[in-house]
């Protein structure tokens, strides 16, 4: 079969399409976005009527996928690592309901926080939910693991977590495809109470899950994704997870590592394989991208027994992404370095595009707030978070999606009046709406800016689930009509906008201000597409 040059994300998507996927569910989030986008742009997916439109957030995505699995079809949910926090409730419980049709959850972690607010390791979540975890070493394994994951999920009736990191998600390499499989037919669970987690049923199912752990470990012992490669020098044994294996090999150009190596691609950990290394070797080095998950479980609380080296003892830095140099140093090899960066170097941080509607919104807001003491603007996650930087320095928080409205309310409850929230349209429907309801029910003195640029811009301009619905949602939640204002964030309306914002800041209840103007990058893209279509021969 043909060899394709694919991003890790795309390899997963192609793997799912070839393995008989019926629907993919996701909310965008770097570095996971391209998985769903690949399915959306795939002719194969369109022909086979595979569902791929965006969900409102990761929780709705996870639950919808669970519904598709209930109905017997193969499905995938994709999210960035922090998305799994949002989807945690259905995710953890899905381990107890189990799956019917194959269910794979893809969590894309971001060690070094290239575009995230933390570097949490989704393997902890997998372990917490007690589901099997797959962690590919490269794009080909990412592709292959999707097939394997669906088989595993359907055979053991369990959701499977596929964990990748930014480096694999956004790196391209050749991938060989397998023969495509057909989608499953509609087929309900044999036991129609499988998904009813009433305590009496849940207790039984939970015990089944506990019992299944032994089986999962056995599967890990024989899985082709876990490999024990013996080496002559037993002074050290190396346990290496996922993509870290590549950094190890990079340091041995002929690929001959002198030490025994255990390459891990499937969890729960293969106990017997680890036991073998433990009895054969004098010391153990653990190389894993992310948290010291394997290292911690090996070391235990007291750290007795064999010496285990890794992130916890400083052999490897405690935070940040791995690379070939870090691994070289951990192996006691000499480090390599090119030339120093000249002292004239300066940073070039990302910034709002010139002409961005958020700029006009921040200018108006800053002008009004200049009269008050600083520190009352609670923001959210999106392009507008760049308003924290110079020259705007307009916002004082960015924590998690939706936290703007709720934090503003909490601060107002504490006496910080007026409090201001700034949230994007897509973030508002992701998880701002429920916070708005709290504020309305409490008549909190907060002024909420819903910056409506008509898209989910930060992650590359995906459709916004909020499109055309914002005023109706606010009214429906009980915001008074007279305190909902749509503004045009443009220079020529600046004075008028400042006046309206001023009035609403004084109002001692919930006001919603909606600056509405399309993101210039999406306008650009729309115009180019239109032009392209107009040019195409009919």
């Amino acid at each position, binding site marked *: 079969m043909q060899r394709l*040059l694919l*991003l890790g994300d795309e390899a997963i998507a192609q793997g799912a399409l070839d393995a008989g996927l019926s629907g993919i569910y996701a909310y965008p989030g*770097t*570095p996971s*976005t*391209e998985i769903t986008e690949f399915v959306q742009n795939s002719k194969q997916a369109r022909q086979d009527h595979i569902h791929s439109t965006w969900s409102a957030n990761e929780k709705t995505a996870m639950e919808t996928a669970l519904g598709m699995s209930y109905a017997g079809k193969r499905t995938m949910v994709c999210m960035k690592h922090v998305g799994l926090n949002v989807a945690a409730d259905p995710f953890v419980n899905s381990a107890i309901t189990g799956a019917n049709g194959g269910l794979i959850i893809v969590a894309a972690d971001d060690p070094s926080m*290239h*575009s995230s607010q933390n570097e949490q390791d989704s393997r902890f979540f997998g372990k917490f939910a007690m589901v099997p975890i797959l962690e590919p070493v490269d794009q080909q394994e990412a592709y292959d693991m999707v097939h394997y994951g669906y088989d595993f999920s359907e055979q053991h009736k369990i959701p499977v977590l596929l964990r990748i990191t930014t*480096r*694999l998600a*956004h*790196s*391209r*390499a*050749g991938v060989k495809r397998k023969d495509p499989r057909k989608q499953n037919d509609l087929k309900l669970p044999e036991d129609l109470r499988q998904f009813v987690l009433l305590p009496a049923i849940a207790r039984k199912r939970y015990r089944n899950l506990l019992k299944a752990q032994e089986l999962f470990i056995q599967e890990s012992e024989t899985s082709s994704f876990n490999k024990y490669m013996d080496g002559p020098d037993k002074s050290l044994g190396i346990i290496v997870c996922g*993509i870290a294996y*590549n*950094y*190890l*090999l*990079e340091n041995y150009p002929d*690929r001959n590592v002198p030490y025994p190596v255990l390459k891990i691609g499937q969890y729960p950990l293969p106990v017997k394989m680890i036991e073998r290394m433990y009895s054969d070797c004098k010391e153990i080095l653990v190389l894993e991208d992310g948290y010291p998950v394997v290292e911690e479980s090996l070391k235990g609380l007291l750290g007795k027994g064999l010496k285990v080296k890794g992130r916890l003892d400083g052999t490897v830095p405690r935070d940040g992404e791995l*690379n*070939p*140099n870090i691994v*070289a140093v951990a192996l006691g090899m000499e*480090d*390599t*370095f*090119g*030339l*120093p*960066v*000249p002292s*004239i*170097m*300066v*940073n*070039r*941080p*990302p*910034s*709002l*595009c010139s002409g961005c509607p958020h700029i006009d919104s921040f200018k108006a807001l800053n002008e009004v707030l200049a009269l008050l003491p600083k520190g009352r603007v609670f923001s959210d996650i999106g*392009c507008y978070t*760049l308003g924290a930087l110079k020259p705007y320095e307009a916002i004082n928080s960015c924590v998690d999606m939706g936290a703007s409205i709720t934090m503003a309310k909490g601060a107002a409850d504490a006496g910080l009046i007026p409090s201001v929230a700034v949230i994007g349209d897509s973030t508002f429907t992701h998880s701002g709406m429920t916070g708005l309801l709290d504020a309305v029910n409490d008549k909190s003195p907060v002024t909420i800016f819903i910056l409506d640029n008509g898209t989910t811009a*930060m*992650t*590359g301009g995906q459709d916004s689930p909020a499109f055309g619905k914002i005023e109706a949602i606010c009214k429906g939640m009980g915001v008074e009509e007279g305190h909902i204002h749509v503004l045009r964030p443009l220079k020529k309306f600046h004075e008028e906008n400042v006046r309206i914002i001023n009035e609403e800041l004084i109002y001692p209840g919930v006001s919603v201000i909606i600056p509405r103007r399309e993101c210039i990058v999406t306008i650009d893209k729309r115009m180019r597409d239109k032009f392209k279509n107009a040019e195409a021969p009919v």
Partner: protein
Amino acid sequence: MKRDIILAGVGGQGIISIAAIIGTAAIDQGLHLKQSEVHGMSQRGGDVQSNLRISDKMIASDLIPYGKADLIISVEPLEALRYLPYLSSDGWVITSTKPFLNIPDYPDMEKLMDEIRKLPHYVALDADEIAKEIGTAKAANIVILGASSPFLEMQYEKLEDAIRFIFKRKGDEVISKNLEALKAGREFTQKQMHS
């Protein structure tokens, strides 16, 4: 054969196109390839880079180790310097001299050029100017690719084929302008090497 290349620039300057063209040519020649890109946050006018690795053997890491890059190809002079720790002792820097001014504290141009002139092996050219002469300011990235082509250890025709393939949907006019840009960049380097 092995080429480890750092591609550098600012979001929107077209380094992904350079990567795609080299990548297509490499695959066409039956070589192995790994290419790590930056997506997301840094696209908004921030610095972007891509690690492109080509080899006739299997490639292990997606990332190039420090001190091991054969080439730094940059469409912007300040960005060329940002990745010097990756450059190997006999590696080359190919860079445009045209600054992308979107930060208030951009270094003094003279000092910046001094730093570039200090490099052991470099080719520096105003790719924007050359692209404009050809009549397509947008092809500055392809001029830089052309200037890098003598160092790629690839058949030049394969790069031309790759341009035809990548720009297929944009029509013959765009293809021929980009081929011209590629040639102009290549000739700049060849002239410098022979003088």
